[in-house]
């Protein structure tokens, strides 16, 4: 790709010509703690437990 003259070509940031995607700021259901931890290899209370850093 370094062979090409791209001096007047802008980079593609997104395949579509869309601008902002707004959403109403409304509360919606989300995962419970237990659901969020369901696949955790290790858990301590409401924290993911990992070996010491």
């Amino acid at each position, binding site marked *: 790709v370094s062979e*090409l003259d791209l001096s007047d*070509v802008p980079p*593609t940031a997104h*395949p579509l010509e869309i601008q902002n995607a707004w959403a109403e700021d409304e509360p919606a259901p989300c995962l419970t703690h237990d659901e969020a931890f369901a*696949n955790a290899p290790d858990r301590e209370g409401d924290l993911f437990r990992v070996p010491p850093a």
Partner: protein
Amino acid sequence: VSVEIDTLRLTAEEAWRLVEARQISGAELFAAYVTAIGERDPELHAYLTLADDAGGDGLPIAIKDVIGTKGIRTTAGSKMLESYVPVYDATVVERCKARGLRILGKTNTDEFAMGSSTENSAYGPTHNPWDPTRVPGGSGGGSAAAVSGGLAPWALGSDTGGSIKQPAALCGNVGLRPTYGTVSRYGVVAFASSLDQVGPVAKNVRDCAFLYSIISGRDANDTTTVDVPPVELPTAEDLKGLRIGVPTEMNDAEGIEPGVSDAVRKALEQAEQLGAHVGECSLPRSVAYGVACYYLIAPSEASSNLARYDGARYGLRSDGTDFQEMVMATRRDGFGDEPKRRIMIGTYALSSGYYDAYYGTAQKVRTMIRREHDAVFRDFDVIVSPTSPTVAFPLGEKVGDPLAMYLNDLLTIPSCMAGLPGLSIPCGLSEGLPVGLQLIGPQFAENTLFRTGHALERALGFDVVPARLR
């Protein structure tokens, strides 16, 4: 007395009618596919996990295993997610369930959808229903083999650089990679986010269009999605007024097998007889630079997306005395060779001092590819080429040569880079194996692709049941 259910031949639309007319029950239909899976899946290995979702009267469906399914293991073909059970459904699954569809199981895929043969699956390859010594294509080889092997009436796949279209071509069925942004990626295991799209795999174009109508449309949980024009189920049997462009570079490319070219040429003659105007066009730089550009952008995005597999929150964890060692051991043990290769390439391409030369340049080439396609679509409604340069190749043939494997996607990649929809339909046989015809349209032109594909499929009369299973 219930009717005989031939899962190899029954289309989703026919199955829907039989259930509606109460000639068969939903449970009988589901059971027929479960029986077929029991008979043929030991040979084909299309499924990684079977679901037990037989309640209700809706149609069964197979789901590629990169698409999250609540309560059903979702591995993405990787050891990293061997025991991952999502706690929520992907939006596309939620939409299928809202229409009553029931999940037969999760289909095999190259690990994290990285590959063109399913041989990169950590759970072993899928076999092609036309010839089990050959690959079904990939990464969505499981979904394509399930549909052609009569193990599902239809299926969902995902496509980054050809993972729906190429397996559909190699297995002799119909696959749509929709316009980027028309189908939600929420709940789908991410590979390269600016390219990934979910789409339908089916036995014919009408089924494909119907399934697309179910899964497409804006989703508040995926801000890249947009409102989609209403889907029109195709009925017309002619192609009057349609302008078909044949890009020289995509039809004369080195490596296209003669039998593949012949089948595509006959399909184009058929299109002319149906009233289409067929003319030559050119996409020189899209073909020359598409694969190189893709293999900068896709691994870069993959290296970022796959950073989340750190053994902390979900997925595999390997032992390590401290956090850093645990993360390294987890990634060493959990990823196979192809994800590791792409993570390394992507990390390099994004590293300080190289970003502009690699990722930045590739994003400019991407704009160039898009502009080249835009120019062609000023004169043509649809462009046509083979989907894959070859028919299904023998298992093992390209495993040791990643570059040869990457060239399978030479003809599918350019339109993916430009965010364009592509439909693959079977158009004939070469050496007894299916040849796929790729139809590409402008963004949001799915209805044009459906119309073209439907008329051609009726005229060509391709028998989608693999010859050895008839």
